[in-house]
Structures are given as structure tokens and as C-alpha cells.
């Protein structure tokens, strides 16, 4: 987080330094808002409100517009996210081959609903329209790995690979 909640003082955490670098890199470029937001999310794992305010000031873009862009794109998140992001493909091929059952089973195992994050911040479970691996349907993506030809029974083994 940018700043320490207990004292209200600004603390230069490694994340804040990365943020300064990022803003320095993009300052003055046209159309930099989305890459900056992507960078912020890379640094903090999500988009903390106070960082968005800073982005708005630094890029001289009204906060309302920043917020508008953040809420428009599915990729941006205003709440903390799990270390591992599971994206369940609900594309046509996956749909036809029964990925809904895989989704239900994952919800059961993790005890979260679509969009939820486990309490230990290990996993966030979401759905995605299509990850473009239809030839391997039904499939899910965990972080950048695609897991295909899934069966409901094999899911726990796959999850175990992610700490």
C-alpha cells in the first residue's frame, strides 16, 4: 500500500519506488493511462484507491476519467487479488463440452464464488469469455498456464501445483 495507515506518513516501500519509475516512464506520453494502470496492477496486484488518485494527479487526467476507464475494462481490479488467478473459460467449445461442471467443482474446492478470492489470498477464481484454446476444451488458465482437456476429478492435482 502506498503509505502507512497507522501513522499516516508516506513510506517509500519498494512498490512505491516502482510506481515512481512507472509514472516517470509514461509521463507526457499520449494515451498512457491504460499501460500505467496495467503497470500499477502489476506492482500492487490490484488498483488501490490512493494510487489511482496519484495516477490521476501525475498524468493530469481527472480522477473521474481514471475511474471510468478502470471500471470499463474487465482486467482492472479495485480489490486485492489472489496470488494465483484461475480463469475458467466459458467459451463456446468449453460450454458445449461441459466446463460449467469444472467451474462448479472449483467453487466447491476453493469455497469461493465467481470473482471471489480465498481468505489466504492463494487463489482468485474468475470466468473468462474465451481463452482461445478451444481445441483443448474444456480448459482453464491458471496465471499464464493453460490447462486443457479437463475432468472434474483432476482439478485438485492441478491446484496443488500452485502455492
Amino acid at each position, binding site marked *: 500500500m502506498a503509505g502507512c495507515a497507522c501513522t499516516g506518513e508516506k513510506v517509500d516501500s519498494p512498490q512505491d519506488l516502482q510506481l515512481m519509475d512507472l509514472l516517470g516512464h509514461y509521463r507526457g506520453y499520449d*494515451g498512457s493511462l*491504460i499501460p500505467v494502470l496495467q503497470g500499477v496492477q502489476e506492482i500492487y496486484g490490484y488498483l488501490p484507491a490512493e494510487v489511482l488518485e496519484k495516477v490521476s494527479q501525475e498524468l493530469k487526467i481527472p480522477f473521474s476519467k481514471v475511474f471510468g476507464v478502470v471500471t470499463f475494462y474487465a482486467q482492472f481490479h479495485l480489490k486485492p487479488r489472489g496470488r494465483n488467478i484461475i480463469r475458467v473459460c466459458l467459451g463456446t467449445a468449453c460450454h458445449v463440452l461441459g466446463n460449467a461442471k469444472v467451474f462448479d467443482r472449483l467453487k466447491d474446492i476453493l469455497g469461493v464464488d465467481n470473482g471471489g478470492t480465498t481468505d489466504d489470498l492463494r487463489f482468485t477464481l474468475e470466468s473468462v*469469455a474465451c481463452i482461445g484454446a478451444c*481445441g483443448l*476444451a474444456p480448459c482453464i488458465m491458471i496465471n499464464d498456464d493453460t490447462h486443457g482437456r479437463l475432468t472434474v476429478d483432476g482439478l485438485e492435482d492441478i491446484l496443488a501445483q500452485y502455492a
Partner: protein
Amino acid sequence: MSISKEMRSDIEERYKRNLERPRIVVGLGTCGIAAGGNKVMDAIKAEVAKKGLDVDVDFTSCIGMCFAEPVVEMALPGRASVVYGGVGPENVVQLIESHMVQKTPVAEQAQIQILGGAEAYEGIPAMEKSEYYEQQVRSVTWRLGRTNPERIEDYIATGGYEGIQKALTMDRIAIIDEIKKSGLRGRGGGGFPTGTKWQFVHDAVGDKKYIVCNADEGDPGAFMDRSVLEGDPHAVLEGMMIAAYAIGADEGVIYCRAEYPLAIRRLNMAIKVAEEMGIMGENIMGSGFNFKVRIKAGAGAFVCGEETALLNSIEGQRGMPRVRPPFPAHKGLWQKPTCLNNVETFANVPNIIRKGGDWFSSMGTEKSKGSKVFCITGKINHTGLCEVPMGMTLRDLVYNIAGGIKDGKKFKAVQSGGPSGGCLPTEKLDLSIDYESLGQAGAIMGSGGLVFMDEDSCMLDIAKYFLNFTQMESCGKCTPCREGTKRMLETLERICEGNGVPEDIDNLERLAKVIKTSALCALGQTAPNPVLTTLKYFRDEYEAHINEKRCPAGVCPELLNYTILADKCIGCGVCIKACPTGAISGEKKAVHVIDPTKCVKCGACVPKCKFDAIAKA
């Protein structure tokens, strides 16, 4: 710097020498990796090292046979290279021993062999004669699965950057004329003639012009752009360079969806090495032409595949479409003339310039020239990526390339063009695949996703699925799309839940017409297509849902009832355990019963019963 004749022949020479060495090549596209390609790669490297073999281990991208992933190619000097399918780390040892050491291919696991002038093996189909490839052409996709996409030398050795070299000696209008002559049309779905678009941007007045590559492939069921970007990134860059030179642009942007990390990585590598070699950048090949390109990663909005929404997104705005006119050709990125084409369109360009427009237009139909890459998925035997000449019939595609419907079931429909397209029935199987024929049938060519369905697929469920998609992805700018798709979806949901009324069909049709004619962009204008085509070709299914409260395909849960057949049930109790809600009861060895008030119709009991005693209707 430029690529001199000597340099090119030197690179070609080395490339050929490498091909003559004993080689093992693993397919590492996203699909190959998903199927476990990296583990296979590790196993191969370990085994080669252990045996101390003099064998090159390399990787390539996706050859298109998704159904056979992970795919591994093995080659010995002077012999055809054999492509094995379904290779797991466990059979690597045996494959290497047999093929590379004993020099005897494992015919049972071989999918195809690639001759390339070398001596063939008995009992393995040659690529051009195999069921999957015989009717395909490999024009845009030919480097996929054949070269290493992360080595620019492989690209140059196979004719790469010859197109731009030739283009730089040509007059700008002559390049545009060559593209016009080829008959190339936008491969992203719209089908607008590419040469004409270039001409517009060329003629537009502006101190600065842009080239934008639309790599925001978002249609569910479509992954050809991903495959091309991962497998032949330089071809896309070269296509963009030629376009930039022709229209007078010096800057390009590739808008690639963030869900394609491997494509973005390979593109970045390609740009970096091309710049290092002086193929891209300032004063390209000494011609005075400058061109730089950057990648803009999408942020997860389907509507950004629409060209004006995409431009807004590059500018850092919400990705909402603009009102046209003005068209991007006149006022595009930063209000400057902008030429926007899709990945596959750009990838076609280098070949057209190298081989001429006539070569390209010799393939295809009167109005749809060349070839088209399709992703064939769903309930077929061969899912994958295929490239066919325009004008092939759907029947040839299903029964020859795709190997027919899975498990010997009956073909019911094919969905072409994703959420903007439509479902075509058996009667339309003899339709020629081209822009006009598909459009007339109510579907569209779209970007090239074809999802096949068998008799177990409910057409209302499919229509509902797509509407749900467009409704969620509607950006909300214009009312017909934002409200109309939602109302259509609600109607469909009601029908599928068994609460449909006969007027619903008329209402759906009327609403669809209004949305089609009044929505701001293509997303909205085409959103009703899945409903309209299913209404046109599968009206009886709608009627069955509405009037008889019955789902003929047995998909819509609210309309289903599970019962246990007394003559088949032996009372083993397996289904009782499988039922998550405790709806099944019965003594051991006595016929079990399902309590319909407790049954949630999940279907978990059906596959568990070994005696086919559970019926759904």
C-alpha cells in the same frame, strides 16, 4: 542496413544444413504447452543427453493439429520427418530409441510424415495425403509448425522480408494496386477489400498516418490470430511494414489482447531482433523509409475488437465505438488517417507482394479470393487450426478435414462467426465458404471460428449463450445494444425455463430487427444473428420449448426430468452415492427411484450408472 543477397543465401544455406541434421522438434504454441509440451520437451532433452545423442532439439509453433497435441516431430538425415501425436513424457524414451536410434518410426503413434524431397517411410500418411491436410492449403499458416518463430533466421531463410525488400523498390500506388488485384479482403470478419482501404488512407490528407494491427481476437471459438502471432510474428510485422510504406505511415501499433501472453512475448522478441538487424527502424534497407511499431496490450473488453473502440482504447479511453463517419481512414488514431487491418490480413500481404496478386487471386471464388484460416472446434474428431481455399463446402470441412462428428453422432449445426454469426443446419452443409454465401445464409464469415454441434446440442442454449456474451460485453453506449440484447436474453431465458409464450418468437424477431438496424457498431448490429439464424433454421425447437415445455436435445435443465428405468436398474446403489442432493433412494438390489422434488437435474448420476438405467427426457 539491408538483407543483401549474400547474407540471405548464407542464412538459407545454414537453415538447410540444420534441416539435414538429426532433429527432434516439439510444438510449443499455447495449445501445445497447455497439453504438456514443456514437460515433453524436458523429457526429450534429458533423454538425448542421457543417451549422448548427436541430435538437435528445437521447438516450433502450432502445426494446427490441436487434436493430437502434444506434437513432436522427429527427423533423420535424408528421411522424411515424422510428426507424432499425443506424445507424453512417458513415451519419449521409447520414441527416441525406436526412431532416432533404431531408425524405425513408431507408425502407430505417427500422425503424418513430411517428405520435403526426402525418402518416405512405409505406412505413415504423407502430410499432403493425410485426412487432415489433404484438402488444406498452407499459405498464411505454412510456417506454423515448420519453423522456429523465435528465430528471425528461420523467417528470412524461408522468403521472409523479401516482400518488404521488393515493395521498397515499387511505387506506392503499384503496391496498393497489387493488393487490389489480389482481391484480399479483411480477414477479421468485415471482409472489406484491403486494397481499397489502403487507397483511402493513402489518399487521405494528414501530416501523420498510422498503421494499426487488430490482434484483439475475442470471438469465442477463434484462435487463428493467436496461432499466426505465435507461429509467424515476423510475417505480421512485414505485412504492417509494407502497408505502412504504401500508405505513407511511419508508426504502427499492434493492439493485442492481454490474454495472449505468448503472442505478445514472441511479437516483442520479433520487433527487438528486427530493429537490431536494421530491418525495422530508421532508413529501412537504405530506402529512407522509417517505421517503428509498438504493442499495446488490451485490458479485457471484447468491444475493443471493433475498430473505433480499439482506437479509443489505444488513446487511453474507455473502449467505446465512435460514430462513423468520419472513418478511421480519414480520422483514426489521434484523429489522423489510420489503416486498421487484422492479423491474418497483414500476414497475407508479404506473400502477395512476393508472389504477385494473380497468384493469390487464383485461389478462391469470384468475390472471395485466397485462403482462409479457420479454427474448427466443438464436437468433431479433429479440432484444430486449418487453412482452406475460399469456396470449399462446409461438408468437406466437416467430413474430411474435421474427420466427422465425435462418437459417430449426427451433425446438427455449425456456428460460424462467433457472437456475430449464426448457426447453420444440415441443409446448408453444401454451402460454399465465402463471404457472400455465408452472409446470405444469415451467418457471417467472421474471423474464422467454426464450432460444430451434434444432436445433443440445444439451439436455444447456444443462442442464449451468445446473447449472454454480447449482452455482457455491450459497452453500453447505444441503447439498442445495451437494452435490446438484455431484453432478448431475458426472453430466451424465460423460454428455456419453460415459461415461454407463443408471442415470444415474434417479439424476438422484432427486437432483433430493431437492434440490427439501429445499433451504433458491428457488435450490436450483429448481436441478434445467433437468435435469428436459430429461429430461421431450428424454429421447431423454439416451438417445442414454448408450446410443449420440452427441450428436444435434453439440455435445458428446467425442462428435463430424470427417471430410472425399472427394467435396467439392478439396484447397485452407485447413483445414490453420486447424487449430491440425496434425491435417489432405494434398497440394495431393488429398483431405485429419483425424487423429482429433490433432483436438481445436475446429471451427475448418468455417467456413473453402468447399466444405462437413467433416462433424461
